[in-house]
């Protein structure tokens, strides 16, 4: 039986908040990389070139059909082995331990990119073709067309999906604890095991995740109002 609830809580509050910070860092980095991967994936899926289209489709379909936890474990092993092989190729026999942080970000970003591919593909396809043709007629270069027409045109359609994926990502960071990386939930598990106050610390971890998801909900609502400015309200 726990001797004193408040003692354990005070002692562990610092590390747990630290873990929450790490969770946020992982999520933000993975989200940024996932956005890039999603854009690449969507471009591949909409490409006129068939092999590239096939590659994009295979990426998004396979990753989305396999459970996240399974992918994280699989990529965790495969990723560290591949990197080590790569370094062995170039740098002799130096065995490197890639940090848990890099693995966590890489794995989550890879999964996130697959879902993002679908969000962006749908949003890009929803842009009226005439707008793209008009941009071409005005002699826009490809990057200018993307930046001036495609991006502002697709964001209102993509943002609800992007916000959903961010929430899923924040919650998926907890899965990283399974491969033993110290983020919020892993720290909470340690706290629970050492104080034997299981329900308390899991509830605390849950509350912190809830703060993160509810907080980002508010931010995304503002962002959506911003990208929808000038559009008739629905």
């Amino acid at each position, binding site marked *: 039986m726990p001797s004193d609830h408040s003692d354990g809580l005070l002692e562990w509050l610092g590390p747990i908040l630290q873990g929450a910070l790490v969770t946020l860092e992982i999520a933000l980095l993975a989200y940024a990389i996932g956005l890039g991967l999603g854009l690449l994936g969507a471009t591949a899926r909409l490409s006129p070139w068939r092999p590239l289209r096939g590659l994009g489709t295979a990426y998004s*379909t*396979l990753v*989305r*059909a*396999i*459970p*996240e*936890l*399974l*992918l994280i*474990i*699989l990529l965790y*092993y*495969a990723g560290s082995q591949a990197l080590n092989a790569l370094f062995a190729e170039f740098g002799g026999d130096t065995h490197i331990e890639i940090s848990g942080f890099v693995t966590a970000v890489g794995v989550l970003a890879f999964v996130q990119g697959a*879902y993002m591919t*679908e*969000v962006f593909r*749908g949003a890009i396809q929803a842009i009226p073709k005439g707008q793209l043709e008009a941009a071409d007629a005005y002699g826009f270069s490809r990057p200018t067309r993307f930046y001036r027409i495609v991006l502002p045109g697709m964001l209102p359609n993509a943002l609800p*999906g992007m916000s959903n994926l961010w*929430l899923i990502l924040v*919650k*998926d*960071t*907890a*899965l990283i*604890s*399974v491969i033993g990386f110290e983020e919020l*939930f892993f720290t*909470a*598990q340690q706290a*629970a095991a050492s104080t034997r106050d*299981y*329900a*308390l610390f*899991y*509830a605390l*971890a*849950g509350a912190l*995740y*809830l703060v993160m*998801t*509810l907080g980002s909900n508010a931010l995304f609502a503002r962002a959506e109002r911003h990208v929808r400015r000038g559009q008739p309200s629905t």
Partner: protein
Amino acid sequence: MDFSWLSDPFYQKALWTGFVNTLWLVAVSAVCGFALAVSFAMIRLRGPRPLAMLVTGLTTVVRGTPLLVQLFFFYDGVGRLLPEIPGLQESVIWPLLRDPFFYGALTFTLSVGAYTGEVLRGALLSVPEGELAAGRAFGLNPWQILYRLWLPRAIQMCLPTLTGELILLLKSVPLVSTIAMMDLLKAANMVRDETFLVYEPLLLIAGIYLALTLVLTSVMRLIEHRFPGARPVAPKRRRLLPG
């Protein structure tokens, strides 16, 4: 790639148990979760205000926290507090409360209830008021209106989304390997620990999940087309998986 361990009856049995448990967990959570979702949706639409607020709060918490944390909260947190309740250990339901399957099913049911409840609420709201009025005009009681008109119409509207929720449920099952339940991932981990083969068992169950996802989506698509009142042509571009 070395799959020779597959001929070992011990591993065959573990994989089979994991496979059956996975399907059972999906079936139990889907059925109980859907029943819960209907109640949640109806409480939020027609229930007394305090109860509706309670359901809204519960939905927010379930949807805003990781499923893994919920699973540990129920299994490790609540599960460890239960023996302190006097008389519970002697009661008939005690063996059930020792079983990780129970906690998996409980967590997933709650999760399906919260997510699907939101979907159903939206669908129930978009059923035209006139159809319900027609039901009342025919003298159906509120219960019959719900069962004969309102719910079937709402399900018909959100069936593709329900398919997506079902796939999400299937893909959450590996989480229960962390609470010592024998599922496919737990079986693969066992093979990995004993044979030191990392990729083979994981890739095998990844393949099984891929197949299960494809089978489940095709079955649901058949149901979508067979559903009474389904539009004759596919209404819009369908995705293989929820986006």
